[in-house]
């Protein structure tokens, strides 16, 4: 039996086991659903007490998205979601199987939060057990990688990824196919692959969720990429603040090795690929690719000047492919369904779907996946359910400390790399924080600048000194001590830091200030020392 057939058999066997149960109870076991282990225990106990172990299977699952109403339990095949479940609800949930669902816990079936989303990367999230490779195999997992490695040539894969139009999901939006082709063509015997899982934007948890829910999808994407560019060693650089994601990745790597999907002679071919984990240590700047490489090499995470780019001169001086978690997670889908399928979704320049972490002052906070081109209004008011407690929408912040605040008048802007950038923000990695009329924009901006100031690595002067100076100017606004000169200095300084900093951290740090100066200028003017005095802006 070939390795391919063995994996297929393993997948079929698991499917048979799963099919033997009349009902499945999937319990979200992500970080966001607290006490899920107790719920699982309570459900299993109830099922055992009723002697229904052969009919009902309780499974641990990944994130189902609607974290605000968690812990969530999904009943299959009925596709019924229960919200805010507690261990005490176990009896009622089990008793209702095959009958009317428990109304008290039921989430409406037509909730826009679910119906408006298009889950591709997250399709298996919340549907399979992230700690069981057989679950992933049974859902068709690793078929793309096996097919790619045993039946496709690297140039063919590069062509498909290029034609798909996929762009980097870490935020900058660089065309993935182009990056891969550069690494594939780069001279050098040894090449490396890196998965950037150093999700540092505060308010963003897309990558955590993908790693916790479908770690094998990320490994599969890395495997295909490694084969396409000719790398034999891969690293996943993951935040130490994500212990559950780390644990599941470690397990996934071990299980993939055991099934000869990683290691020497992948799938019975002559292709070798090993993956190692590297833990981050709480430095935001390490999300920048060259800083991340420095950190893997055991040093302080200070960025290197570019060029040379990592694609030519990266880890230990070798050509290195570095992509984000979500980018890799898209790859198995593109290989399975083709470039045209992927390119058919989204906008002209921004293809596919994007995962966002929708949080802040919003009713249905959680993790969502939408096609590029959907408007911010649809995301905030339909999927997100709008602003709670009768407050008014004020702004949505995208791109974390590198992004900007988008006001109500631009809510109809479609989500794409270009349109967000035109609004003075960025796509970023996918954090989307909603603010209402209780949020003070100068305070929020000061918060982001304090973050950038503390996280500046100190290597280049514009960022090290500039962020501190911008922060002290913002403090003056907060203390109502600012003058018209301070406002002018703030704008000059933002421009200087943006244009002269070495890496993306400094180059984008002024974005929150600039976007709020553009859309919420009055809030700055209101906080000047003498807002009504002769020094008001425009009267100098």
């Amino acid at each position, binding site marked *: 039996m070939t390795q391919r057939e063995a994996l297929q058999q393993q997948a079929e066997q698991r499917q048979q086991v799963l099919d033997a149960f009349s009902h499945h109870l999937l319990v979200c076991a992500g*970080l*966001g659903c*607290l006490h899920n282990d107790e719920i699982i225990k309570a459900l299993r106990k109830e099922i055992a007490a009723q002697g229904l172990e052969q009919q009902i299977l309780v499974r641990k699952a990944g994130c189902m998205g609607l*974290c*605000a109403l*968690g812990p969530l339990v999904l009943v299959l095949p009925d596709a019924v979601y229960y919200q805010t479940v507690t261990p005490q609800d176990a009896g009622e949930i089990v008793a209702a199987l095959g009958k009317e669902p428990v109304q008290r816990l039921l989430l409406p079936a037509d909730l826009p939060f679910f119906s408006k989303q298009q889950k591709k990367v997250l399709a298996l999230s919340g549907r399979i057990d992230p700690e069981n490779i057989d679950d992933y195999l049974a859902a068709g997992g690793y078929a793309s990688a096996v097919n790619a490695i045993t039946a496709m040539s690297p140039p063919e894969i590069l062509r498909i990824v290029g034609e798909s139009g996929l762009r980097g999901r870490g935020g900058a939006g660089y065309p993935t196919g182009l990056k891969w082709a550069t690494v594939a063509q780069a001279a050098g015997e040894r090449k490396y692959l890196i998965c950037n899982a150093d*999700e*540092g*934007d*505060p*308010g*963003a*948890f897309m990558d*955590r*969720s993908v790693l916790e829910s479908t770690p094998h999808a990320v490994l599969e994407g890395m495997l295909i990429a490694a084969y396409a560019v000719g790398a034999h060693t891969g690293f996943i650089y993951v935040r*130490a*603040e*994500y212990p559950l994601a780390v644990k599941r990745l470690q397990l996934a790597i071990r299980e993939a090795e055991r099934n000869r999907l990683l290691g020497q002679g992948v799938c019975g071919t002559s292709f070798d690929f090993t993956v190692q984990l*590297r*833990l*981050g*240590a*709480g*430095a*935001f700047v390490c999300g920048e690719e060259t800083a991340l490489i420095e*950190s*893997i*090499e*055991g*040093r*302080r*995470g200070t960025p290197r000047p570019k060029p040379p780019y990592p694609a030519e001169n990266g880890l230990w001086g070798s050509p290195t492919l570095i992509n984000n978690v979500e980018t890799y997670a898209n790859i198995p889908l593109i290989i399975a369904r083709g470039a045209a399928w992927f390119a058919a979704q989204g906008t002209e320049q921004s293809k596919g779907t994007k995962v966002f*972490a929708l*949080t*802040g*002052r919003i009713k249905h*906070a*959680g*993790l969502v996946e939408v096609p590029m081109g959907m408007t911010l209004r649809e995301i905030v008011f339909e999927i997100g359910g709008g602003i709670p407690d009768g407050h008014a929408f004020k702004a949505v*912040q995208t791109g*974390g400390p590198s992004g900007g605040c988008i006001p109500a008048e631009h809510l109809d802007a479609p989500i794409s790399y270009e349109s967000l950038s035109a609004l003075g923000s960025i796509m970023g990695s996918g*954090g989307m*924080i909603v*603010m209402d009329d209780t*949020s003070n924009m100068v305070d*929020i901006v000061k*918060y*982001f600048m304090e*973050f950038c100031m503390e996280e500046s*690595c100190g290597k280049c002067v514009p960022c090290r000194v500039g962020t501190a100076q911008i922060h002290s100017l913002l403090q003056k606004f907060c203390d109502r001590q600012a003058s018209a000169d301070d406002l002018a200095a703030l704008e000059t300084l933002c421009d200087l830091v943006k244009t002269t900093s070495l890496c993306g951290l400094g180059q984008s740090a002024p974005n929150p200030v600039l976007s709020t100066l553009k859309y919420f200028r009055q809030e700055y003017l209101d906080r000047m020392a003498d807002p009504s005095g002769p020094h008001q802006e425009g009267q100098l």
Partner: protein
Amino acid sequence: MPTPPSDLHLQDKRWETIDRVMRRHDFRQDALIETLHAAQDAFGYLDADTLRHIAARLKTPPSKVYGVVTFYNHFKTKPKGEHTLVVCTGTACHVKGNDRVLAWMEEHYQLKPGDTTTDNRISLLEVRCVGACALAPVVIADGSIIAKKSLAESTAMIREWLNDAA
């Protein structure tokens, strides 16, 4: 030259785990951060002796080891108190009021992030976002998450948790 670690230090079984990490990386200098993680997991923090020992084993200047330790927020050079309260300072938690939780801690316990009470009972730490943003504001008391609470509820729970009705 780095000072050799004391015998006492080496007798500690926890050093075996740390040495194993270095050995797995053939004592290469790029094992530094991995080794520091292992050492902090074992001892709770990184003291000068530990850093000197790691520097010597990896043939890395102590200044470089210290530079790395102080660069990364995750590494601590001071021991923690009996209990640890971690306040998430991510954006969603900030928007939902965790800045006021920190202000309250300073007012009532004279604690700033990174501080430990003089009786060594409570350490206050801040973390840059634990990624549980839908549960904001998030405070973590000895590893358990206190989620979605108002300022009054959070502070009441912290008080209760600290068994301090004052």
